[in-house]
């Protein structure tokens, strides 16, 4: 259902970025990069308003004519950005939330791997399989 999924580190460089191979990948990279500004804006806005109740799921960051971009930030400031096809209107908020939850769980599994250094690019087969399962449903 997603056309592009990216994991961005705290320092705002990509740890993992994967998009549907048929489309122009650079366009998605650019979309994700520009969405980081919106993420930062949401984080700073939320921080002042509700300090106790920090929601991890950021919701719809911004819609373009073809795509919608959703964001999710963890407590360690690692961001997950998901680009979804606009024509897929059947996708509800709950489904996006559950997809982000699955991403977060897989990310924590990777962090627990003793051979993974935080800040490295993500090279895990299990993570790839999980992301594939989220992206293949488009076809």
């Amino acid at each position, binding site marked *: 259902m997603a056309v592009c999924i990216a994991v961005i580190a705290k320092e705002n460089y990509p740890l993992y970025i994967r998009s549907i191979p048929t489309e122009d990948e650079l366009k998605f990279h650019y979309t994700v990069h520009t969405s980081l500004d919106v993420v930062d804006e949401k984080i700073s806005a939320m921080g002042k308003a509700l300090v106790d109740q920090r929601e991890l799921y950021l919701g719809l960051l911004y819609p373009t004519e073809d795509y919608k971009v959703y964001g999710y930030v963890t407590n360690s400031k690692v961001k997950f950005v998901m680009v979804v096809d606009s024509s897929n209107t059947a996708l509800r908020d709950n489904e996006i939330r559950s997809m982000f939850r699955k991403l977060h769980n897989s990310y924590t*599994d990777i962090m*627990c*791997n*003793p*051979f993974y250094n935080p800040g490295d690019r993500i090279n*895990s*087969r*299990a993570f790839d399989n999980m992301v594939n399962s989220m992206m293949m449903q488009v076809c």
Partner: protein
Amino acid sequence: MSRPPGRKQENHKISRDLFVLTYGALVAQLCKDYERDEDVNSCLDRMGYSIGIRLIDDFLAHSDVKKCRSYSETADVIAQVAFKMYLGVTPSVSCCSAAGNEFSLILDKNPLVDFVEELPAERASLCYCNLLCGVIRGALEMVQLAAEVTFLQDRLRGDAVTEIGITFLRKAEDRKHKRK
């Protein structure tokens, strides 16, 4: 430094995740310190040995096992009592030699590798759980049984199962002769 008597009945459980992550950090640090896999493996074995020579007394104190009469009984006790007590898994035992002094423990679930998906490419011959081999070797040595313990198969290295091979080096009958 003996423990106060009231503590004997308490079962102090620590988090399994903490233990697995600590072991993982240990192996990762050893990989950073040593370049060759053999050095890391032998270091893990030495550490396991020093744990084993101390753990055996704790094991014998907490479990009610009687003296083992044969190597196969010893292997069974290791698999069914010791592994169950310390790691929570029960490997299956099989004897692989006609002489009766080589056994293999087949682990279908190894809690120590819970979070490790696969070994990094440059560490292809690392025995991640070599500490366990050292522990078994040290423990057996303290009960006067010399043994060689190695990993015959390892799921992390691509094999189908994880298999630990125990080879007892001296026959028990020799000891009985000496006593007589």
